[in-house]
């Protein structure tokens, strides 16, 4: 069993080393990858990151109940996104993903986030943003589960602060692609300009997350906690 985990870890390390090598290769002149398009490179990296999470999910032992749970929660987050889509950036999807991650841990949290982004885009329209949204929402789940380490009950303050942070984090990560793909020169000024232009949306997202957590955090937590006993 232990040997198995070791083998698993070494593969992650291998992927990480490959990604870093790829990145370095674009900086060293006189090779075919020199000055590779950053938009392409960053998309490839995001794909690799999502694949690693999906891969580890495939390898883990998951019961049919957990699979049904992941499907349900991600469909719910997707529905929430569409139901609130008239109100841009003010949507409880991030909150729903985070609360399920808080109860069920990082792996389930990532899967719920990634799948809800994918599924809602089947209805809202797929685009180059899909893998980025999958990664961002998945990572929101992972971050929320970090807050839950060593906790046996719902900690409102910790969770709310993390929810606010995740609202900003989501927009900040997605901006990277926008900047890398379409801006020139790629310097700190254009970087800040892209971030400034999305700041209002990011703050609405963050504040919405925090308010949803305060109003509905403990209710959702109780429901999910009780459900966890059945699994």
């Amino acid at each position, binding site marked *: 069993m232990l040997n198995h985990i070791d083998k698993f870890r070494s593969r992650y390390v291998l992927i990480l080393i490959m990604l870093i090598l790829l990145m370095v290769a674009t900086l060293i002149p006189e090779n*075919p990858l020199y000055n590779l*398009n950053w*938009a*392409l490179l960053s*998309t490839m990296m995001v794909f690799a990151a999502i694949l690693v999470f*999906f891969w580890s*999910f*495939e390898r883990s032992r*998951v*019961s*049919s*109940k957990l*699979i*049904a*749970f*992941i*499907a*349900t929660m*991600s*469909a*719910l987050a*997707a*529905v929430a996104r569409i*139901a*609130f889509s008239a*109100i841009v950036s*003010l949507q*409880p999807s991030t909150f*729903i993903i985070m609360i399920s991650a808080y109860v069920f841990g990082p792996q389930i949290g990532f*899967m719920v986030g990634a*799948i*809800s982004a*994918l*599924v809602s885009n*089947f*209805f*809202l*329209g*797929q*685009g*180059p943003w899909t893998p980025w949204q999958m990664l961002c929402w998945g990572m929101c789940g992972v971050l929320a589960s970090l807050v839950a380490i060593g906790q046996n009950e719902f900690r409102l303050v910790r969770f709310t602060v993390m929810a606010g942070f995740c609202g900003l984090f989501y927009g900040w990560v997605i901006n990277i692609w926008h900047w890398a*793909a*379409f*801006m*020139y*020169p790629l310097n700190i*000024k*254009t970087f800040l*300009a*892209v971030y400034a*232009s999305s700041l209002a949306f990011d703050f609405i997202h963050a504040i*919405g997350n925090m308010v*949803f957590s305060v*109003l*509905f955090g403990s209710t*959702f937590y109780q*429901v*999910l906690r009780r*459900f966890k006993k*059945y699994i």
Partner: protein
Amino acid sequence: MLTYQFKDNLIYKLHPLTSIIFVGVVFVLALIFSHPAYLLGLLISVWVVLGAAGNLKEGQSYIKFSLIMVLMIVLINVLFARAGTTIIYRGVDIPLIGALEISLEAIAYGLGMSLRLLVIISVFCLYTYTVNPDKALHLGGRLGGKSVLAITLSLRLFPLMIKDFQRISEIQRCRGVKLSTGSLWQRAKKTLPIISIILLSSLERSLQLAESMQARGYGSGPRSTYDRDLWRPRDYLIIALSIMALFLGICSAIKGWSAYRYYPILEEISGLDWILASFIAMILLLPAILNWGGKKWPL
């Protein structure tokens, strides 16, 4: 409900893998190319294929949606780029940015990148409308059982939950909860309880789902898969030509033909550039040509 609605033409009847390869090739080419001629070629061929698939209207709404992004790209590039030499306008000092300086090159670069964005948006519009999500997920079924199962289940639960949402909001309305009036925040506050009711009922449903999966023997042995989609000669033809276009694109990127120097002064576009760009675009027109041929000379 789903954005995908079947239409009776060749592009909808392609094998899902063929469509995915076509879309992937155009996406990668759009990111590799920075030359406006090449990007324009890609845009034209994507739109002709979109037209052949009968999705011009949907494509237009995609474009409208992305206009804000186009505007922002042009604006930020124009305001911040300092590498251009052909200055059109030199104006007042702006705090943080410095002296305002608008160069022809920066505008051209902004427009070039907008072209890239439009190609990407249009090709994803093609994907969204012409590839059946269930069939696309089937392709992944062999690679990963559990995650694809979770995605498929979630895709199936989604319309069910939307129906629940509509039903519960009607009931709430009957009880006097005003869902469509009031400020944004009030509306959001009234809508979220509906979500929490759906949470309760759908968690119940998910337990039943799991039990029924268990009863049908899920996870009791190695998974079996099957393929319902037919491979036709046209699929092979389109895949072969798409890969050829990708190969040509990569070659021209390595040779530096498809790269365009915007700064410090705009490069001249030679006839050779146009020829090669239109050649690649023509290769990518194949699905539209096959569709036209199939209609003109039906079997």
